[in-house]
């Protein structure tokens, strides 16, 4: 039967769900905008400049320069996870939004795909904004060294899809809002601190480097670092492929888990 088909049953309805989220977000655009606008300044100031004074890197670059690709990876990750973990859970469980949508010609797979596309959109907006801020501050802080940096915007689609899908997977198995403490502490927090955004992995012991390879955020940071500094390497393509495979896996898993949650 269609509801249990192996491949996702996605139609134009996914875009309808994306539109719904866009309209809902634009209603509160001032609040939304404020959060996005201030964040990168705060962290560039606090970590890049204030903490950065005390950090000396082997590569000789300033800490704030080292930090730039990490910020471009971290904040979009947060945007996608907040949207598709907490946000999706609220729509799924508290507001009955999914239930109301699947009573129309839109399928569960459409809903989930639309949600993930929306989470990705938020990640892209966020990442692009940080890139713009970093470029504007370039005369003083030299965070963006190469025009290749512009490619970070389209590349950002991949981590956007990935972190949105992982978050939906979690939302689909959560039974209470408090369960997100597990998600935050076991998934997002380790990625935040140990995803390669704040310190160079090269200087770490071998086993930490191996562990890092399994961290999706590390691959995102590696790609962004290459693009922003202009040091393009073949390894970046490997990272891209790694992200693509893991993204497909979590997307299909997200669809299956949500079907199980909603169709019974």
């Amino acid at each position, binding site marked *: 039967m269609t*509801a249990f088909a192996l491949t996702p049953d996605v139609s134009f309805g996914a875009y309808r769900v994306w539109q719904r989220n866009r309209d809902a977000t634009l209603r509160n655009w001032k609040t939304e905008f404020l959060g996005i606008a201030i964040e990168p300044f705060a962290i560039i100031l606090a970590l890049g400049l204030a903490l950065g004074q005390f950090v000396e890197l082997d590569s000789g670059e300033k800490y704030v320069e080292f930090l730039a690709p990490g910020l471009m990876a971290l904040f979009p990750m947060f945007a996608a996870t907040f949207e598709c973990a907490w946000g999706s859970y609220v729509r799924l469980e508290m507001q009955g939004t999914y*239930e109301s949508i699947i009573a129309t*010609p839109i*399928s569960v797979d459409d809903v989930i795909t639309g949600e993930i596309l929306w989470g990705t959109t938020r990640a892209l907006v966020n990442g692009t904004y940080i890139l713009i801020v970093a470029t504007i501050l370039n005369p003083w802080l030299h965070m963006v060294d190469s025009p290749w940096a512009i490619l970070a915007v389209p590349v950002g689609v991949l981590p956007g899809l990935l972190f949105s899908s992982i978050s939906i997977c979690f939302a689909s198995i959560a039974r209470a809002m408090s369960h997100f403490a597990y998600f935050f502490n076991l998934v997002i927090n380790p990625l935040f601190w140990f995803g390669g955004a704040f310190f160079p992995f090269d200087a770490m012991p071998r086993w930490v480097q191996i562990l890092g390879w399994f961290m999706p955020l590390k691959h995102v940071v590696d790609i962004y670092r290459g693009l922003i500094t202009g040091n393009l390497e073949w390894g970046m393509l490997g990272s891209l492929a790694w992200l693509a495979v893991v993204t497909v896996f979590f997307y299909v898993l997200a669809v299956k888990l949500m079907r199980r949650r909603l169709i019974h």
Partner: protein
Amino acid sequence: MTSALIEARGLVKHYGDFVAVDDISFDIREGECFGVLGPNGAGKTTTIRMITATSPVTTGELRVAGLDVKEAPRQVKAVLGVVPQDDNLDPDLLVRQNLEVYARYFGLSRDEVRQRIDEALELFQLDDRATSNVDDLSGGMQRRLTIARALVNNPQVLILDEPTTGLDPQARHLVWQQLRLLKSRGVTMLLTTHYMEEATHLCDRLVIMHRGKILVEGRPYDLVAELVGPQVLELRLPPWERDALLAEFPQGDGVTVEQVEDLTYVFGGGTASAMAAERVGDPHRAHLRPGNMEDVFLLLTGRGLLD
């Protein structure tokens, strides 16, 4: 007129070992209001979820507007309007936006449905709340908006799952009035409820469900007339007084007695019932009243509808 919009044949739904719907068959015809009456847990909502393609059918056949629900869930959902048991309006959107965004789920543009939405807001007395937050509406208004929302795609069948549960009597009567108006305009409706009064008011035909099975099917007043008879004697007496009173009734003459908690119901007592009520002389203790839908359910199951 007699073509069936919804056809169920031998419909079964299992959840593991639990049988939620146990081999039911029914037809819903164009233009009629069809009721499914039963207590909580009877299988009403599960039946609706199967019709709206959000719960897979275990076995049996289910067709909506000639389409198999298993084969063509999207097409089936496109011709239905669903009013779920719990309001699930979109609190992130304004009242009017709720209808516009919902219409978009059916692939209808804002321009296409502008007039229909204007009419719906007026019909459901929400036109002055078009730019309100959904959370600021009263329960009755939210219910009406949910019904208005179910109509944006001009559905062939309007499905209402306990449409007035949780509403105060005034709000309930307003919803009934609007549903009757829709009915007079020829909207086909499937309605579940555990209020016998609601079923009697609105339904042309109904089934009574209990533990996943259909117990009886018919027109509300016919069922009452056939199964209950014109009058019911309701007794609220201590056991010894009750037994003494019942001993006066003629034996084996179609008289049925049902005990629910501290209440005793006597069906088919005829003149003996009238005499007994007169003898007690206190309507709080012995009350003779017309039969109703609740009595039908009580007779068929030996228990009340609302517990």
